């Protein structure tokens, strides 16, 4: 089971869009995918029509009463999506209250890693959608994943959020004493604008080793898919956005093959 977290400490950069696009393409390749919505705003959950408080529980409940160890309970929480191969662990508005409810002292950053460890035989890929702020939820995602994908909007000031994200990532690596590889994904790229071109150049200059080979272009079809609650490849399998995500996915898959060959172990394999 491969766990990828799609995160940036900046909002509106295409995290949720990337999660849904990649999930659809993975399902297309025949993989079983679990999506985890760690954002209290629940935009990933509402993408699939889960707009109300989930009655079977949500990520929130995992933090209490050792439910991260209760496989039956976890199974009960998982919801279907419009694709049989893709399932969802939904968010809850209550997640916004989590920081106040739990202590940061007792390893609460490992709750998600423990939960996913129990599901390791049931899915091929897990994609984590995270809130754009540093807190217990983002730390849980970083601690559970084996690769971080950082969507970064190609515009002025985008680098700031990216820097913050990388600083957090380094701290997780120090705490966990492991390497956590990451891929920076330029998003909403529009070659006609200066802002797009110059920020992409800046990313290439500073982060060339970790930069994705493929930028995601601006593509209104991605927005349409979100509005209709369908996976982007279902709406337009050959659209520019979907094609870019397909190339990205291939690159990520070959990267993760490389790292397995070189013996770098993942957190939860």
């Amino acid at each position, binding site marked *: 089971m491969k766990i990828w977290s799609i995160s940036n400490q900046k909002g509106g950069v295409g995290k949720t869009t990337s999660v849904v696009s990649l999930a659809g393409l993975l399902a297309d390749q025949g993989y079983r995918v679990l999506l985890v919505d760690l954002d209290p705003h629940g935009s990933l959950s509402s993408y699939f029509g889960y707009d109300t408080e989930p009655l079977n529980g949500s990520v929130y409940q995992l933090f209490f009463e050792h439910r991260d160890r209760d496989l039956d309970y976890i199974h009960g929480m998982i919801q279907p999506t419009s694709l049989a191969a893709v399932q969802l662990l939904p968010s809850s508005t209550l997640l916004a209250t989590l920081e106040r409810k739990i202590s940061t002292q007792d390893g609460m950053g490992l709750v998600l890693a423990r939960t996913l460890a129990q599901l390791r035989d049931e899915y091929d890929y897990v994609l984590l959608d995270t809130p754009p702020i540093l807190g217990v939820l983002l730390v849980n995602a970083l601690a559970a994943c084996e690769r971080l994908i950082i969507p970064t909007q190609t515009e002025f000031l985008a680098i700031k959020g990216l820097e913050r994200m990388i600083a957090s990532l380094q701290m997780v690596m120090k705490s*966990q004493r492991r390497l956590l590889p990451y891929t920076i994904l330029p998003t909403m790229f529009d070659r006609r604008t200066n802002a797009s071109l110059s920020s992409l150049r800046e990313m290439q200059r500073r982060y060339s080793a970790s930069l994705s080979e493929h930028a995601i272009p601006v593509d209104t079809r991605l927005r349409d898919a979100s509005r209709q609650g369908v996976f982007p490849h279902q709406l337009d399998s050959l659209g520019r956005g979907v094609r870019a995500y397909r190339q990205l996915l291939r690159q990520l898959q070959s990267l993760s093959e490389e790292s397995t060959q070189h013996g770098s172990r993942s957190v*939860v394999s």
Partner: protein
Amino acid sequence: MVEKKTSVKPLGENSSSDIDVLQTYFNQLLDAVPDLDSDSGSDSGSDSQSTAELRISSAPNEVIDQQFIKDPGEMTTEVDAESIDQTLSLSPTDTAAPEISDWRQEKKIQCLLFTVAGLKLAIPLSLLGGVSLVDPNDVRPLFGQIAWSLGVYTDKKQTLRVVDTARLMMPERGVDLSQTGFSHLIQLNQSTWALACDSVTETLNLTQESIKWRARDGARPWLAGTVISEMCALLDVDKLIQLAEASRHSKNL
């Protein structure tokens, strides 16, 4: 916990101690594994397994340091004030500290919205003790209680006295939550009182302008004001607790 000394330090400069504070935050969240040897019983097996896997992935420190050194531009350790600020505000010590200032004076008031029998209510997060998803059948009615008592609910940690929010706040409507049901309990601050409600909808960041504060002492002591954009009642949690406590002592059941 994030060290206290830093909360008085002006934020803005990215000093090494800011980074230390953040690193401590990460270490605490990630290093300890809770309840490994406590009474977790039969599931302790799977737990130690996942812990073991987390440890397997441990690489020697030097490896990480090498990566840090590899490309200083790429691996910046710069941390800006905003994220420090966020982290400090996450510290439980901060929320647990005695409230010196009245929550009403805060520039920003974060609230949780919930509904009861069609009524929308807001409670400040700073005065929210917790939210539990419950089965109404697990709330045990008690005899001789005031009309708006639904009984008591016991979870692993505590026993809560459950208030029929509809009966307390709008008795004129004649709604009885023990008949119509409810799904969540909203614990009032650190008290043993909890409000039964139908659904929890969202959190809101309120500014002073978005609230119409109520002039003191009206027919509804539990009402602190109105959230203008949502047209919903903002609760006065302290008054609610006082009201509930008073009912326990009155013989007027």
